[in-house]
């Protein structure tokens, strides 16, 4: 007859204990932040951490229970926690099973804007030289459709892609005819050239629009000059019209932080709110293209940007407390990784890096790059992330190229100096293009990296709010669960 075993049968009291892998960081005179192998955080005192490492813990002493619940310690013969950590890790990294889901087609480098921070080094003339040809586009489509992912996204970029709208029509039609996959489409446009024909085409083909909105009119127009000085007026009109025709969730906007934005975060957020957008992505400038040539990138450092970000996040939380749901999308992405095991393969924040494995970029001249930033570098003469050309390469030759494998393997955070022992490693990523651009090395020296400072700063801020501000923590948890 079956019966319950006595309680001690379930205890590790008499069993040898075994330490499980973890990372830590000193956060105060006597305080440490500790993260287990899948990035669950707890705080320990210095004495607790030393006792844990020496395995001077036993059931009933409080620290054992704390460490056991956080998967920092287990019974030497227990398999369950190791299996649980492995299952969670496999789930978190399962985005790797969907290889190259994003394909970016640069249909033209021409643009009618002249933004001083333009990271792609747009051109204003010479259609024949800076437009993607149909023949080249079809070869690029062959490569995109050869990627193993069952569902891919084709994103049209520029320059201003609507300057070559006929080619977008051709590519969409061809992809639908030739594909055995589910294909989603996005046009990244400043919307200045948006008209009813474009909108009708987007509606008929279920195409998303992604645009730039840097804030209120004076700031946006300063950041994004064009003839007529009406970039903001056209962007706002385009967003409104697109929401009417395509639906409120079919158009998104991104902002870029310039020096002029640093004291305006409340105004920027209020502009997004005024337009009925459901959130904002607070983004720093990237070190590419005209942002370097015009010295825009050098005008503020990581600490100034973090102050801007914190003020913005707190303003967004205040809006939520007042009853309006509104998210900061980068925080939402990080929170999803910190508070769940969902696989988040965001190409700019993952390890192995998203270059090539997450996205391929087909430039207007047929060159193929490992990332959008890689083609931006090439416009200023650096071909470090040019993987090949659509005329000479296949999907396999691009993905298995020595250049891509070298960049990805040399930048893995899981085994990189500083990163491999970083308490935030589970939620961070490798950015070989950024570090190549700023330090001349795909791995980078992380104590000198603004990328590293920004990620650590944001995650530290989020943990502080989760720990110390219950009302705001509840809002952040909702973002992670969305």
């Amino acid at each position, binding site marked *: 007859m079956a019966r319950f075993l006595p309680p001690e049968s379930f205890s590790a009291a008499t069993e040898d204990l075994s*330490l499980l892998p973890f990372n830590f960081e000193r956060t105060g005179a006597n305080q440490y932040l500790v993260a287990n192998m899948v990035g669950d955080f707890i705080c320990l005192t210095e004495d607790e951490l030393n006792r844990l490492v020496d395995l001077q813990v036993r059931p009933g002493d409080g620290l054992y229970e704390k460490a056991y619940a956080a998967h920092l310690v287990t019974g030497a013969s227990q398999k369950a926690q*190791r299996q649980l950590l492995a299952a969670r*890790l496999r789930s978190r990294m399962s985005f790797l099973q969907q290889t190259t889901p994003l394909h970016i087609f640069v249909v033209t480098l021409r643009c009618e804007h002249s933004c001083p921070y333009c990271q792609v080094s747009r051109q204003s003339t010479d259609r024949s030289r800076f437009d993607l040809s149909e023949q080249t586009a079809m070869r690029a489509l062959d490569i995109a459709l050869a990627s193993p992912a069952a569902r891919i996204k084709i994103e049209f970029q520029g320059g201003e892609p609507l300057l070559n709208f006929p080619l977008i029509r051709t590519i969409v039609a061809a992809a639908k005819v030739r594909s055995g996959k589910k294909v989603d489409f996005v046009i990244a446009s400043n919307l200045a050239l948006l008209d009813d024909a474009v909108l009708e085409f987007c509606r008929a083909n279920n195409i998303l629009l992604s645009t730039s909105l840097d804030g209120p009119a004076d700031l946006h127009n300063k950041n994004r000059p064009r003839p007529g000085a009406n970039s903001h007026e056209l962007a706002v009109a385009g967003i409104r019209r697109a929401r009417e025709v395509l639906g409120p969730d079919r158009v998104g906007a991104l902002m870029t932080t310039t020096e002029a934005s640093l004291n305006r975060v409340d105004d920027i957020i209020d502009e997004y709110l005024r337009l009925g957008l459901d959130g904002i992505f607070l983004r720093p400038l990237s070190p590419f293209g005209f942002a370097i040539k015009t010295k825009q990138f050098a005008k503020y450092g990581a600490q100034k940007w973090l102050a801007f970000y914190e003020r913005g996040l707190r303003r967004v939380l205040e809006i939520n407390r007042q009853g309006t749901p509104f998210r900061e999308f980068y925080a939402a992405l990080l929170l999803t990784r910190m508070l769940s095991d969902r696989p988040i393969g965001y190409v700019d924040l993952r390890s192995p890096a998203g270059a090539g494995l997450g996205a391929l970029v087909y430039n207007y001249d047929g060159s193929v790059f490992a990332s959008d930033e890689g083609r931006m570098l090439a416009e200023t003469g650096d071909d470090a992330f040019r993987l090949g050309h659509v005329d000479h390469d296949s999907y396999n030759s691009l993905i298995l190229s020595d250049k891509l494998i070298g960049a990805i393997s040399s930048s893995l955070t899981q085994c990189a100096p500083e990163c491999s022992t970083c308490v935030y490693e589970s939620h961070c990523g490798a950015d070989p293009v950024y570090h190549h651009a700023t330090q001349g090395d795909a791995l980078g020296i992380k104590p000198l990296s603004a990328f590293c400072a920004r990620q650590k700063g944001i995650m530290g801020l989020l943990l502080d709010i989760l720990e110390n501000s219950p009302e705001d923590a509840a809002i952040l948890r909702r973002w992670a669960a969305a």
Partner: protein
Amino acid sequence: MLSSDVLKERFLNLVTDENLRARVAEKTEGVRNVILALAFGALATNQNDAG
């Protein structure tokens, strides 16, 4: 500018923490490899095939 006492304290903390990291790595290297093998190795492949 940081004082010499603050710099000294920072340096000692850095050395203490790096020593602790080395001890943790030494004690957990084996189990880390077991977990990685369970997550991404042949067993994981078989489970995916079965599923």
